[in-house]
């Protein structure tokens, strides 16, 4: 039982994320206010995290520390909850985000191919939060819009019935949605052209 030699991943570097002291005073004040609106009850943690994420676009460590203090919860518990739920983001998001549905109905209608195509087109990997610097692509498992399968969510807007069977129309549509790699040189180079990791054949 010998592990292959490889460098262990380094502990997350939090130096580049703002500590609480550096958070905008107004946001800190609003966080306090919304916590008070919830009666400072610890069972409101998830609701509070939703609202804090709306404020910052993600959950900065300083804000998590503030939430923990004001809801009288241990730091580790707050982090445990924030990291459990996939809709909470612990790092700053990219400027644009796209979600591709890989639920069953979308899967049957070619959601996997769509994901693979987007990976190639944008030069990024599915579910890598850093994306290509501008775009990040994540998967979702059913948005309840299965009647419109396959679907995409582009910056919060649902795009129904993507024409996966018609590559030209699909490309035109994706282009019109602004889904293009920021750096043309890395478009079309996909190490995983077999689509592994996306449910595609």
């Amino acid at each position, binding site marked *: 039982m010998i592990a292959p030699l490889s460098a262990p991943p380094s*502990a997350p570097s939090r130096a580049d994320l703002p500590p609480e002291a550096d958070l905008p005073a107004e946001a800190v004040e609003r966080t306090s206010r919304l916590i008070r609106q919830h009666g400072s009850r610890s069972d409101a943690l998830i609701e509070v995290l939703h609202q804090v994420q709306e404020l910052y676009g993600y959950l900065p460590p300083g804000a998590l520390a503030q939430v923990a203090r004001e809801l009288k919860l241990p*730091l580790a518990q707050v982090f*445990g909850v924030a990291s459990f739920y996939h809709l909470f983001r612990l790092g700053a998001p990219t400027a644009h985000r796209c979600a591709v549905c890989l639920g069953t109905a979308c899967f049957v209608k070619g959601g996997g191919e769509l994901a693979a195509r987007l990976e190639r087109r944008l030069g990024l990997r599915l579910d890598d939060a850093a994306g290509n610097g501008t775009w990040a692509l994540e998967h979702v498992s059913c948005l309840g819009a299965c009647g419109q399968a396959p679907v995409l969510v582009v910056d919060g807007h649902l795009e129904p019935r993507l024409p996966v069977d018609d590559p030209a129309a699909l490309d035109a549509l994706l282009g019109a949605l602004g889904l293009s790699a920021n750096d043309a040189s890395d478009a079309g180079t996909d190490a995983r052209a077999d689509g592994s990791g996306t449910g595609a054949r």
Partner: protein
Amino acid sequence: MSVHTLTVDGEEVAVPAGATLLDAVRAAGAELPTLCHLDGLTPVGACRLCLVELEGSGKLQPACATAAGEGMAVLTQTPQLQAYRRMAVELFFAEGTHVCAFCVANGNCELQDVAVAVGMDHSRFPYQYPQRRVDASHPHFAIDHHRCILCTRCVRVCDEIEGAHVWDVANRGRECTIITGLDEPWGEVQACTSCGKCVDACPTGAIFRKDDTTAEKQTHRERPQLLRDAREKHQWQNQ
């Protein structure tokens, strides 16, 4: 105090109301492997090693987290249970990275003991060799996540007995990991009192004293129960 009578592998036992099936199994003198359970901590029923079969319904229930009831009949060693336990141990070994020969807990590790008890010498499932962290930032202790089996005994002992709640579980599924504070280096977490209870509670070589080298880890797994009895029943160790 009211008493429940039940049978364990055909053996009749009586346990006080409020006892678990694990208490009953022990009272009957039967052996049952456990990993996530530690006397004195709230049971979670996570490792699934202590599953027993309820005769009649055929349902499997974790003995550590199921209340003993009047007239229950439990089986602890059916061939099926043995096969499942062995597979569970294989899954534990395959999901982390365990090199016993170089481990502080070698010879004093509950995972190792369970592997011996269920007769597992290799995993039929491919080893995953996950990329995990080692955190040695604490002045006295360290944690090697490769050996962590996510039993959450450290989390519970720190929260329920020490009252510091330094630890918790972050992420989910296969990404689950034990964290300190806001996923900070352990040494930087102010809440840690350096009491060492997590070291004692950890069933494997994941959390250890920095002074200890290979096969030197000593543990005191009885302590949570002693502390709890002292606190709740005023039963002190000198009595």
